[in-house]
């Protein structure tokens, strides 16, 4: 397909030859980057001249969403090759950028540095897992899928494993993992627009959705690709600027990634001090007392309930009798009303309160030491040894699941269909990982620098002198940030501050003392990250339904225009369904995202890799492997993860296999998938001659007398 004359209607992204096209792209995106920086500078000046924070928020939101919609309008198309794979002429560098934005979701942009802040070394599993997976993409999948060159991942499964069985399994798995993932992105869009412009959550979701839909509805993969490049540029600038600033403030050196090792040493030294600090110990002791009170109540719930109720009633009566001020009486009445109604309710409320207070008794506000590898101690007693082994096993298992999942997520693999050639597909993986690397090797630096700032600037500050951003964030959501003077000494201890991972990145500009315009820019970056991933995921789902299910399985005679039209209609339906689910604010959304990796890894990876590297793999083997891998992963999660247990009404006690946490359930599914494909393939007859030819076709970039599988 290389060099095919583009048939699209949009003028901006249509060009005659690949070289001229690339030159034109360089020019467009250079102007675009300059324009974005100028926009931020103008707003910065306007802020100094008195532009309000609300307006900065509106302007960032409006400008970026309109920009993405504008790119969608300019690259509108109804040609299938343009709609599904952007005409297969996205140069390696730009496909790399688009993949970077496609890949880095709200979780990467907003959540990851927070996870690293809260869990230290343990969080690095995400950093390694989400980058190392690209080695598997490059070595096992991208070049071969590009040579095969159709439109979707189920396409490959259908062709390689003769028929609709594996294609259908692929469709189900693709929808399962993409839908959970897209719900999380739209949820992130809602959070950011709420914070950025102060509009209600549901409205924020639909505004963001509007931007996504104009873009992918009109132009499909083509529009999404060029929007994702634009979004990557915004998100990387937004991520790097505050960290560089923070680095200059703390170390007077502008490359945080090189210097933060020394900051980490200081953080480690400070942890030592905080662990022994008498005030910290005092706060922890108070939490312990409170937890003990609830533990005592839980021992005899009916009696405690009666006593609590009597106490509260007595207090109200006393206050009324003493003619106390109305607000005191109201407070006492409120306390009376909040006494649990019955024993079941009391058990629930008190167990929660006990757990919350017990969390406060942990050293360093429950955070493991930043630089410490794994919990426990290999040279300690039995308990410490087991803790160490389990922690290490889970760390490695999580890396493995995230890596293999990365190499199996359909919305990422699909991107490698869009390059002009196999050669460029290989190079494109390098660029993808490079652009992802830029953000991922900054996130741990950000976490350490913020921790240094919290330990050295915030902790020990009198409560009445705390910076303003603490109060503002606490108002947005107390679950994200709360400070309470537990030991009533008027000074903030680390144990008195509860911070949610999700605000670390969004609050960094304020922590570093930057003007508000940078906060707006960071929020716009988070929005870009969430929207770009949502775009790619929605396309994957809509294409799986329209191209694979409708065109390939139900109506193979459908004309091209009908297929694209159906895809567009499905896109809107899927987007609305995802927005509807996101608006319910499902509880365990972060778990669902991680679960998507285990599902994708177990369902796709063995079948795809053996399909290319093992000619003997048969249809029945692949089907067994996909069902078995996905099945055991699902079973393990459903029986061990609290939220899924409640959904499926599982009451049997939790039984962890080798102490592996449910998030890494794929560790069982992936080997089982491989094993089943091997065994079942040996007992079924070998694939026919045509399949052998197909495999040779994908293995060699060119072959004499080669067949052509590229989709049109």
């Amino acid at each position: 397909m290389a060099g095919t004359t583009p048939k699209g209607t949009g003028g901006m992204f249509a060009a005659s030859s690949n070289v001229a096209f690339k030159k034109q792209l360089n020019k467009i995106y250079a102007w675009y980057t300059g324009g974005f920086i100028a926009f931020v500078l103008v707003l910065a000046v306007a802020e100094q001249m008195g532009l309000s924070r609300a307006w900065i928020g509106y302007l960032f939101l409006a400008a970026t969403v309109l920009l993405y919609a504008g790119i969608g309008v300019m690259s509108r198309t109804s040609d299938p090759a343009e709609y599904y794979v952007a005409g297969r002429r996205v140069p390696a560098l730009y496909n790399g950028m688009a993949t970077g934005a496609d890949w880095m979701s709200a979780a990467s942009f907003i959540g990851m540095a927070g996870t690293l802040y809260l869990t230290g070394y343990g969080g690095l599993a995400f950093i390694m897992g989400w980058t190392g997976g690209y080695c598997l993409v490059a070595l096992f999948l991208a070049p071969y899928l590009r040579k095969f060159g159709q439109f979707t991942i189920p396409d490959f499964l259908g062709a390689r494993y003769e028929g609709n069985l594996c294609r259908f399994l692929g469709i189900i798995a693709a929808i399962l993992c993409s839908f959970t993932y897209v719900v999380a992105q739209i949820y992130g869009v809602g959070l950011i627009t709420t914070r950025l412009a102060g509009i209600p959550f549901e409205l924020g979701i639909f505004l963001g959705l509007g931007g996504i839909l104009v873009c992918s509805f009109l132009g499909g993969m083509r529009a999404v690709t060029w929007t994702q490049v634009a979004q990557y540029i915004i998100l990387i600038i937004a991520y790097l600027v505050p960290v560089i600033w923070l680095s200059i403030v703390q170390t007077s050196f502008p490359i945080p990634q090189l210097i933060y090792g020394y900051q980490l040493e200081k953080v480690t030294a400070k942890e030592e001090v905080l662990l022994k600090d008498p005030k910290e110990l005092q706060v922890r002791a108070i939490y312990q007392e409170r937890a003990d009170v609830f533990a005592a109540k839980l021992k005899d719930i009916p009696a405690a309930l009666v006593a609590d109720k009597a106490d509260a009633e007595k207090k109200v009566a006393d206050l009324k009798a003493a003619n106390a001020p109305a607000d005191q009486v109201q407070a006492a009445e409120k306390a009376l009303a909040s006494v649990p109604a019955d024993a079941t309710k009391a058990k629930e409320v008190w167990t929660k309160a006990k757990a919350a207070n017990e969390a406060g008794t942990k050293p360093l506000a429950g955070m493991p030491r930043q630089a410490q590898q794994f919990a426990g101690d290999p040279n300690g007693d039995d308990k410490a040894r087991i803790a160490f082994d389990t922690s290490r096993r889970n760390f490695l298992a999580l890396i493995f699941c995230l890596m293999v999942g990365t190499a199996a997520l359909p919305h990422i693999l699909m991107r490698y269909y869009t390059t002009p050639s196999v050669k460029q597909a290989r190079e494109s993986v390098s660029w993808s990982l490079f652009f992802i690397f830029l953000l991922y090797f900054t996130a741990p630096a950000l976490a350490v620098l913020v921790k240094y700032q919290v330990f050295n600037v915030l902790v020990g500050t009198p409560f009445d002198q705390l910076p303003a951003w603490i109060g503002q964030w606490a108002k947005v959501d107390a679950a994200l940030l709360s400070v309470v003077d537990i030991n009533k000494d008027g000074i903030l201890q680390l144990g008195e501050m509860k911070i949610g991972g999700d605000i670390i990145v969004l609050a960094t500009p304020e922590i570093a003392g930057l003007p508000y315009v940078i906060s707006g820019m960071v929020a716009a970056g988070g929005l870009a990250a969430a929207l770009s991933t949502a775009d790619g995921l929605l396309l994957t789902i809509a294409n799986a339904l329209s191209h694979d299910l409708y065109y390939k399985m139900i109506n193979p005679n459908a004309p091209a225009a009908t297929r694209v039209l159906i895809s567009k209609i499905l896109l809107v339906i899927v987007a609305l369904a995802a927005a509807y689910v996101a608006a319910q604010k499902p509880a365990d959304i972060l778990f669902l995202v991680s679960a998507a990796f285990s599902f994708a890894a177990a369902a796709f990876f063995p079948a795809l890799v053996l399909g290319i590297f093992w000619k003997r793999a048969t249809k029945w083997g692949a089907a067994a492997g996909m069902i078995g891998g996905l099945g055991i992963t699902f079973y393990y999660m459903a029986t061990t993860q609290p939220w899924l247990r409640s959904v499926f009404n599982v009451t049997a006690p939790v039984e962890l296999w080798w102490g592996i946490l449910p998030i890494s359930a794929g560790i069982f599914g992936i080997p089982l998938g491989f094993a089943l494909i091997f065994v079942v393939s040996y007992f079924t007859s070998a694939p026919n001659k045509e399949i052998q030819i197909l495999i040779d076709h994908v293995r060699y970039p060119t072959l004499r007398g080669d067949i052509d599988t590229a989709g049109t």
Partner: protein
Amino acid sequence: MELTEQHRIYWQKNLRITSILLAIWFIVTYVVGFFARDLNFTFFGWPFSYWVAAQGAQAIYVLIIVYYAHYMNNLDKEYGCAEVEED
């Protein structure tokens, strides 16, 4: 579409480089990860295994992929498997 001896060598070489790079990937990720507590010596301020997980491994992943693309693109030319690109 008959496969020649050349094609077989091409595929063997591809498998060889894939295994070598995969072994490096494995060592950097899992062997260093497994012995993380022991590889604790200070490296420009970081504990070494922390630095590998936070930066070193990612840099090596990028190098693995860049090297593979470079190697395979040359191999394509050498064994007559390269595509004709219309630039």
